[in-house]
């Protein structure tokens, strides 16, 4: 039997918070993926809303590209708003 496709599961713990990735599961289609997610990840009242996304639909950054993707941000303190001093007398900033 061919294996069921993989789905990534996102759960929103309560109203006002964002959906957070909680894990993955196998299911033959979206409707059953949602039910499986309910049974696997919200048995103990962990959430009020669930998203399931086909894992194949997610494009992820590669660990090999870690240096070129993320390291350049390390020494660019001017990207943080706290780098800039606000001149005295500026009213509409």
């Amino acid at each position, binding site marked *: 039997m061919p294996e069921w496709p993989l789905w990534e599961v996102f759960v929103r713990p309560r109203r006002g918070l964002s959906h957070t990735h909680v894990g993955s599961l196998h299911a033959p289609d979206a*409707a059953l993926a949602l039910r499986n997610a309910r049974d696997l990840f919200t048995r103990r009242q962990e959430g009020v809303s669930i998203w399931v996304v086909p894992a194949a639909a997610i494009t992820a950054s590669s660990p090999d590209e870690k240096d070129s993707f993320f390291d350049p941000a390390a020494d660019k303190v001017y990207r943080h708003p706290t780098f800039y001093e606000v001149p005295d007398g500026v009213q509409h900033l």
Partner: protein
Amino acid sequence: MSGFEFVLGLGDDALVAAQRLAQWCARAPELEEDVALANIALDQLGAARLLLGYAGELEGEGRDEDALAYLRTDREYRNVLLVELPDRDFAVLMAKLLFLSAWQRLRYEDLAAGDDERLAGIAAKAVKESAYHLDHSALWTVRLGDGTDESHARMQRAVDEVWPYTHELLAEAPHLRANWLSTVDGVLAEATLRRPDDGWRPGGGRDGRHTEALSYLLAEMQVLHRAYPGARW
């Protein structure tokens, strides 16, 4: 106030259904379905415990839920035959769960609005669970019925096999029959399955006359308690 036998019947339906469902643990097509079926089994067991506990109080002879579950023979069980039928394959399991949960949902809804407050409380809790069991079994019935030639043939055969046993279920509350039929018909139609003609109407479960399948099920369920009375984890 409800009668002992009546509440016992409801509890036995749930208990035997739970035991059958639990037998799928580690045997479902995928791990995820294992968990889903175990969840449903535990829902049924939870309802069974409350119902049997209440039945024991109504009887007033000091039997608790364990005494009723572990120390009765098949002849003393009052469940309908449908729940004890062996699950020859996954399609039979789903046909049984579809018919049972469609029925339990209506039945519990009805009882939740009834005069017996204790029973109404138990039913109000169980009705939400039944709705989920119905959803799960309906989804699978549609996928198997409207799936491949092989899955369609096996789902139809399962529906044909189990259908006669639904009469015993419905006989108890005929006023819910039309509603049950419309739920089940909707699922069967979406699944491109044919509703079988009414013919043979096996029954007798409520009087303690069961198929041999129940004896094997009870033997497995009761063996530990009978060998080591009062054993605890």
